[in-house]
């Protein structure tokens, strides 16, 4: 197992580990809030990975400050654009999930989804 690749791409490795943590949290946690936190971890890990794709060592961020127009001076802007859209998407999704959780809590006074389901099965609506 040649570790050289891993060391060079340590950032991607970290992103993947973060993704794993977020994914397992979203899937396995009982508490709804913890699920949402897991969701956000997963998304941020994705955006870290995406940002890394655009990064070229030794170049500046793609904001034209001192009139330099030459492309070679900046890093690849597209991944950053994608990250922006991604962040918009994950914000809206988290907002929706949180509203659902509040509604459930008001109705059942518990954040445990499985417990809600069993109570639902017992007394219907």
């Amino acid at each position, binding site marked *: 197992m040649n570790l050289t690749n891993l060391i060079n791409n340590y950032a991607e490795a970290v992103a993947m580990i973060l*993704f794993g943590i*977020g*994914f397992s949290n*979203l*899937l396995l946690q009982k508490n*709804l809030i913890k*699920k949402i936190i897991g*969701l956000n971890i*997963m*998304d941020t890990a*994705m955006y870290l*990975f*995406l940002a890394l*794709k655009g990064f070229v060592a030794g170049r500046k961020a793609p904001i034209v400050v001192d009139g330099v127009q030459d492309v070679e001076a900046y890093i690849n802007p*597209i*991944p950053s654009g*994608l990250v922006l*859209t*991604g962040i918009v*998407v994950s914000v*809206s*999704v988290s907002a*929706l*999930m949180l509203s*659902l*959780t509040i*509604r*459930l809590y008001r*109705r*059942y006074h518990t954040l445990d*989804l499985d417990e*809600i*389901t069993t109570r*639902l099965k017992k007394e219907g*609506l």
Partner: protein
Amino acid sequence: MEFVQNLPFISIILSLFSGPLSSVLDGKKAKRVNIAVISIIGVMSAAVLAYVVRTGKAFVYMMGHFPAPWGNEIRVGVLEALMAVFFCVIMLLSMIGGVREREIQIEETKQNLYYVMVNLLLSSLLALIYTNDLFTAYVFVEINTISACGLIMIRQNGRTIEAATRYMIMSLLGSGLLLLGICFLYDLTGQLLMSNIQAAVRALDASGQYHIPLLVSMVLISVGLAIKSALYPFHAWLPDAYGYSTLSSAAILSSLVSKGYIFLLIKIFYRVIGFGIVRESKVIHILFVFGIIGMIMGSLSAIKEKDIRRMIAYSSVAQIGYIYMGFGLGTLPGVIASIYHILSHAATKSLLFVAASGLTDSAGDSTDFSDLTGAGYRNKLAGIAFTVGSLSMVGFPVFSGFISKLLFAQAAVGHEIKMLPTLIALAISTILNALYFMNTVIRIYTPERRRGNEKQRVVPLREQPAKSAALVCFIVLNIFLGLSSEPIIEMIRTGLGMFM
């Protein structure tokens, strides 16, 4: 560059902006806007379809005339136009069918919000069909998920909110994996436009490098989309989501939303990675096996159900299994069969949902089997519609189910190893379908023995004109798909030809 080529882009934008627009209107007006929007888009897509069939080749439309890496592209072929037309027709009929349910079940103030969600859903479906860019596809997948969750939640009782939450969690898992898969592809090829990625992947495959990351991204994308389209092992959220939501959302969700994701998966397999590479990889066999298991297990759990809506929901798990088995075969006829089944299942499933709601009307809105005995006599049209739907699901000759079963079987016979398991699975699942569908049909036609069941009342034809009209249109659509399926199959074949 005729004007017609702009129509697909216009239809996406129209439905996208009619969403927020209807949030300011009140319930009645929003409904009218929605119906108008859907019909206009339907007509436009039909025009596009006619144009593309006439010219015989797909065209690419660059939004804002910016070339690839900066601007965005949509690509319209015969297959995409056909799916668009079909989705609009189904959505229109489902909306018309579910009018009365919406008025009763959704509070006055929230009526217009429902139409916001429906318009957004329509726009995201059209985008999924047309888009030629992977990341746009991901964004619209997310819009699709959120609006679908809105559709489930609109009915505001405990069950739907719990169902919506479960739906969201599972879908987010799916889209997380999808995003990861797309990023891997982007990482490998540096491109986001489907045609460019395909060229790069072909080069990679020729050179033999990065074989494992390519395989991983394929697996991630397939599993992600499988979770979102409720393939067997990931279907836990489906029965609650479809079972308890209001009628039109159940119809739309079951026939259109899950099919949109499957169509995206087919597009990715064909246009992004190239079907040859996919065929060599093991992913196809995994999907085939899950498809077969899904067919059988879906029907088995449907047999145990005591509630007619949940039974129909479980049967769509089985039908999605059919589709995955279809293109799991890996041959061109297999994919044609699965696409045809997407259309036929969409038509039959929404017919079944609307007919089931007709039957429950005559049983005092209770979806339990014990109240439904004899419902066929009380609501004649719904009874006939439900029988037509069940016969089509069982694969009776005149109806569309028979044609898709025929196509699946013919595709299977071409394949060497997978032939016998497919044929046997087809036969067994037909029998299982017959078990629970015909059981219900026979139940609704056995006269009610117990006296004094006050909930039951006779529903005259004219009481719900909209629903009756929707039912009749669905029956005609089903029989049309059953009897004259020749042109549609030809269109799918040429469409797939253009996909390359």
